[in-house]
């Protein structure tokens, strides 16, 4: 039997605000427990929530980029349940009138994944389990989240990952979230069911939680799909339940049956007035929306004939793409700029442990360096040396001048140096004469070295070959 896998994702994304969604506490990651709390996020009696407009703005940016229809008047609802990490015993969320609905995200391959809704809510605290007790850290309480819910449009683990990567890229480009799965600023729950290929009816689904990485998402989807198929093929029935992904055992473990899930007694939060989003605000946000990764990639391919891999790498982070575009804008040929950035710049960032947003070199500096190579002032090898020297600051042309790195195109000077090299390497000359082509390369290299690298390699090759031909006759 052939089976189709049907997946819907619920993704929680932490918004990059300075302060929490209903109070002024910091949202910084990694502070000592319970140091970023106030009466509001602790839900002390008499405290009241005040909506952070910045959180709304970031969520709206995401909604627009995901092609959603923004709800003109959305509302906040209380989701009531008792848990030690939830100080008010309710989470402020949006159920009845979420911030936005009916959007979509297009995957790189062109498949369109529908977004059914997205809403704003507050995060809960964190439990730390110790041998004899459990401690609660309320620092995360009230950190703003958007939950983005897809329709059941994804067809497997690979596609789920592709969706998340694309979503992450969009949100990072927008500055809406840093989307760090390892810090929990992007979290994803999977709803998965299988059905006979071609069937239009949805099967019984399970919900998968505790997916700490994209790899975990892919593996959990694959494992769970196979598990469900095995059950159905042996004549059994899939139970509607919530499962936890066990990273070590690489399998899904049932947590609880869905039927047992509590009744959250949602109702409109009387402490918060409805949230009206005017067309003016949206128009302003639309105008402000930056070009997104896939839009940039398409433009690079179209206008600059860059390959798919180059486009994808350069647009993987907004900071990198913007650096690339600046270098091109300063006159560097796009392909040269791309090669330098994907090669040397990424190498140095990785060696120096820097993020792409932290490139110390100016775009002007890299553009100048590329121009020096293009003009033949330095050869490529010398240019890499210059690059490393000016990466943390400095003017390439100045560096070349003060270190006398200009290459020489004076054929007579090269010929004289090459003649010396040939004279000192009889063995290699004879090898060449006896048909060993490799020997020429060695002699070219030796000549380059003797020239201090300051000559165009192609020219040196030509000169050496002319001298060798002369030897033959």
């Amino acid at each position: 039997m052939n089976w189709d896998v049907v997946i819907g994702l619920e993704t929680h994304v932490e918004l990059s605000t300075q302060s929490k969604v209903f109070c002024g506490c910091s949202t910084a990651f990694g502070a000592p427990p319970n140091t970023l709390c106030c009466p509001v996020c602790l839900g002390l009696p008499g405290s009241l929530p005040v909506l952070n407009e910045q959180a709304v703005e970031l969520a709206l940016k995401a909604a627009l980029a995901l092609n959603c229809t923004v709800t003109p008047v959305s509302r906040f609802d209380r989701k009531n349940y008792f848990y030690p990490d939830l100080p008010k015993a309710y989470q402020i969320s949006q159920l009845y009138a979420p911030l936005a609905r009916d959007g979509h995200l297009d995957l790189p391959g062109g498949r369109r994944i529908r977004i059914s809704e997205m809403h704003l809510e507050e995060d809960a605290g964190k439990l730390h389990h110790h041998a004899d007790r459990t401690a609660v850290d309320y620092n995360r309480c009230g950190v703003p989240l958007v939950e983005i819910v897809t329709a059941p449009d994804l067809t497997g683990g690979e596609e789920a990952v592709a969706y998340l990567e694309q979503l992450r890229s969009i949100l990072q480009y927008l500055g809406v979230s840093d989307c760090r799965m390892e810090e929990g600023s992007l979290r994803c729950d999977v709803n998965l069911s299988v059905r006979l290929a071609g069937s239009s009816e949805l099967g019984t689904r399970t919900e998968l939680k505790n997916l700490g990485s994209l790899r975990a998402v892919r593996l959990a989807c694959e494992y769970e799909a196979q598990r469900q198929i095995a059950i159905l093929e042996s004549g059994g029935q899939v139970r509607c339940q919530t499962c936890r992904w066990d990273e070590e055992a690489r399998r899904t473990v049932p947590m609880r049956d869905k039927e047992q899930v509590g009744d959250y007694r949602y109702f409109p939060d009387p402490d918060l007035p409805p949230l009206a989003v005017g067309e003016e605000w949206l128009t302003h946000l639309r105008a402000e929306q930056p070009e997104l990764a896939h839009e940039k990639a398409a433009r690079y391919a179209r206008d600059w004939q860059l390959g798919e891999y180059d486009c994808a790498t350069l647009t993987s982070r907004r900071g990198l793409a913007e650096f690339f575009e600046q270098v091109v804008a300063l006159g560097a040929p796009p392909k040269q700029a791309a090669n330098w950035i994907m090669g040397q710049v990424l190498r140095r960032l990785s060696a120096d442990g820097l993020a792409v947003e932290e490139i110390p070199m100016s775009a002007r500096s890299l553009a100048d360096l590329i121009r020096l190579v293009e003009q033949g002032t330095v050869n490529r090898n010398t240019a890499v040396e210059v690059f490393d020297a000016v990466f943390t600051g400095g003017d390439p042309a100045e560096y070349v001048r003060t270190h006398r790195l200009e290459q020489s195109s004076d054929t007579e000077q090269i010929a004289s140096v090459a003649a010396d090299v040939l004279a000192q390497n009889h063995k290699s000359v004879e090898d060449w004469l006896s048909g060993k082509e490799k020997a020429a390369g060695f002699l070219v290299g030796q000549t380059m070295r003797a020239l201090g690298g300051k000559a165009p390699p192609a020219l040196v090759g030509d000169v050496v070959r002319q001298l060798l031909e002369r030897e033959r006759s």
Partner: protein
Amino acid sequence: MNQLFDLTALELARAIARGDVAQSDVIQGSADCIAVSDKLNCFTAISVSDPIAATPDSSLSGVPMAVKDNLCLAGTATTCASRMLRDFIPPYTAAAVEKLLCAGAVCMGKTNLDEFAIGSTSETSFFGPVKNPWNLEYSAGGSSGGSAAAVAAGLVWYALGSDTGGSIRHPAACCGVTGMKPTYGTVSRYGLVSYASSFDQIGPIARDAADCAAVLDIIRGHDRRDSTSLPGPYPSLSAQLTGDLRSVRIGIPDVYFDEAVDEPTRCAILSCADALRRRGATVELCRASGLEHAVHAYYVLACAQASSNLARYDGVRYGCRAEAAHDVQDLFVRSRSLGFGREVQRRILLGTYLLSDENYDTYYKKAVAVRHQVEGAFRALWHSYDLLLTPVFPGPPPKLGQKTNDPVALYQEDRYVACANLAGLPALSMPCGMRQEGLPIGVQLLGPRMSDGAVLNAAFAFQQETDFHRRHPPMFGLGGDAE
């Protein structure tokens, strides 16, 4: 000293400002009075705030007052008269209290109430019932019973209360003082422990309408810490007290002037109408429809909100924590069972039931629809009337212990007052007569949203015509001379 107690808060502030009386003597007089009034059980805590040097233009500077114990005062226990919060000390002060303190008010203590302001007899308090200064066998009303009794007994010149479904107006009527629930959103709820957030509103209980206006002029205003706070503008209410009611149209809605209203109450309200007419108002009985189910909708919505607002008291972070729980779920159950009294538990259970998946549409959504209907009914009335006149409750105040076993009958009595909360209207209760048994009778005035000044002015006019607000229970002000 004794004649000081006959002054209103405004008069006392002027006397202090003129130097006729020392502020320290006034505070001492009030403290002495409170000290010998234990039997009323007005206070949950007595602690005199350090007087702050107020701005010279403050109308109530130096006047002793009290604060209902569901309003936070930094560093002082805010118990809500519940075992649950017996030891809870908030790190902040409620916006309304802060404004009064900054205006030179002297807080003498926190007043007793129904547990979490849930109730209308002040009998559900963990600290025991508040007694009516007019007759100790009667309830002071509720839930702001402590505030009303303290003002009626002359222990303080005014007090803050909170009103979710009549909790200022009911005890004010029981105790023969003037209490005002302002328009919803005009006084910040920041620092008020929530019962039903969309109805809760802070207001004054005082000796007359002019004092209420003076207090409201200080505590009203926009506060960005409360998202339901209205932006204003907030014109002076005191300046609107002209006593002139010419061209003011007042209706007495038939639904609230029904057969349940007993003879003494009916007569008192009719003579109140006459007094208002003497000031130039037209007063007439009027038809009103669409208000019949207001009290039912009120209870559905209030219980639903209470079940959520009171869910945070789980024994984990502060408040009552039960011993010997075997897991965290058990800790929640035991702590809440131990910390909450019966009436609070009843409303939480009701609210939880009403909000459940299977009941949400049947009850909650329907109640919201009724609320809109009630708002519409009032809007229709405002076409023909500027203000409405109704009873506060239909008969004598409840005797202590009388109705605690019949909660539904008690809920029904809230129908005269809860409608104002449902529609967010300003509403005032003032004394307008005396029963044969020596207990005061109250009457309610209500108006459209933001007509607080008009409501107060009608009460002010009535109080210029009559002296019910100047009548005091026999024990009034005796504290100072008792020894």
